[in-house]
């Protein structure tokens, strides 16, 4: 059954998969960050994902950025998120231009928004875990908003 993107259910499904794949995420180590995912389309949606220890302990949609203490937020239009997940679907991992780092680096197609450099640096400190988290969508049937 297709899961709508973006939605709380989508990220909760990735969380469920993360719990089922504990060995991989434990090998990557502790991941402690609360990140935002912002999807801009006809309407904008902002989600807070809280990573603690080896899992994602909370997923919620926010009305505004001030509703949670976000270390950093990845912001992109819906079309770019779709391109990224479709790239991941091809081989289970993104093509080089579609890794979270690549998208948010040169060209800033995906913006990394943050207040504190410490929060910003958490994106890089936990990069492998966050990338592995989104890569879990490789065999998800997605219904695009």
């Amino acid at each position, binding site marked *: 059954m297709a899961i709508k993107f973006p939605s709380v259910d989508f990220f909760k499904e990735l969380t469920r998969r993360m719990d089922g794949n504990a060995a991989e995420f434990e090998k990557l*180590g502790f991941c402690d960050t609360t990140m935002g995912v912002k999807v801009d389309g006809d309407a904008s949606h902002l989600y807070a994902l809280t990573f603690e220890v080896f899992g994602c302990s909370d997923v919620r949609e926010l009305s505004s950025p001030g509703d949670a203490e976000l270390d950093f937020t990845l912001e992109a239009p819906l079309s770019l998120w779709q391109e990224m997940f479709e790239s991941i679907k091809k081989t289970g991992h993104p093509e080089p231009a579609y890794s979270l780092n690549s998208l948010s680096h040169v060209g800033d197609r995906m913006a990394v928004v943050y207040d504190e450099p410490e929060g910003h*640096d958490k994106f890089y400190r936990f*990069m*492998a875990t966050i990338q592995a988290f989104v890569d879990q969508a490789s065999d998800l049937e997605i219904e695009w908003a």
Partner: protein
Amino acid sequence: MSYYGSTDYSYNSDFNLRVRDIKKGNLDFSWLDNARDTVEIRRRDPRRGLMLEDVEVGDYAVENTPEVVRENRGLAPRGAILAEGSDQPDLGPSLNKKSDVWGYRVQRYWEEAMSRQWNVTTDVPWQDMDRYEISDDLEFAFCQLCTLLSEVEMIATDLPSKWSHHMNSYFQEVKGFIATQCIDEARHAEVFRKRALANGVGLLRASVRGEHALKGILEADSYSEGSVFLHVLGEGFILTLFRSSEFISPTPVEQRMFQLVMQDEARHVSYGLQHLKYLMDNCPEVRPQINGFLDEAERHLTGLFNPDQLESMIVLGGKGTSPECIKRGIEVVGAFQGKQIQEYFHRAERAGLPERKERSPLLELQQRMLGALQSA
């Protein structure tokens, strides 16, 4: 042998008699005389095991340690009972003030470092390299990049190890964290060496300019100066370089490599930032010294923008050596260099040095680079 102790215990009759007495079963239990009340330890999060923060109680807590440690100049860990008198050897630590070395949240960085270690030999998918064909231009360019990065990581291993034994043993968490940095950086040097050799090309030109820049890090007069140069300035730049290198990597194998190294690098930057912040919060009188040092350090660092590295990144960024590829590569490299400088100024501002942006020689460099991009 340059240290001869005040007592030769192998010939000390009192010591030998005492040991023989103990082995006959005559224990005096004097070491229990100073036994204290037990402390209550609570594991805050059973998923993590027992964390450093869990054992920060009473005399063992760093917040209960005075700013200046006078009582211990040996190896005794914080909280241990020290012998009366001056029997404990003086190991000569020169960093005995918390603000000399401490950083907010250093305990957390230690736990994260220990938890997120990885193995070059097995965690990089070397076996996948045979699936990809890389042109000679790109392979040579990548090996040149790996050569410079190996040089950088050597210094990043040497600076923390240079200062570790100067730190008072009461600051165990910092000593431990910088030890994890040593192994992280040694691992980085390993991965860049292996990658340069993996397809048979090997290491290319070592950088004269780059090494002069790196020497400035090692020769810093104080740990804090060395830390701000290495962790905040240098590793901040290198973190952005790693991000760019992931972006321009010729195959997913190199992408994975840079994904892993950037995690370690970002953690070092975080510690350096928090040490600088702690220093500015607790010793604002050192601001002119740090600013003066950074005025020179930032000039030094421009040596890392050496022509061999720049050209190799332009080739990688543009995916070739044709005029069109070079033009594209120049845009890619220009963009990341601008980011390096911008992110450094933001870190400096948040650490308590907002004036860096106005007085830094990097600002002029940034403007020159932007100008070059616009005219390219």
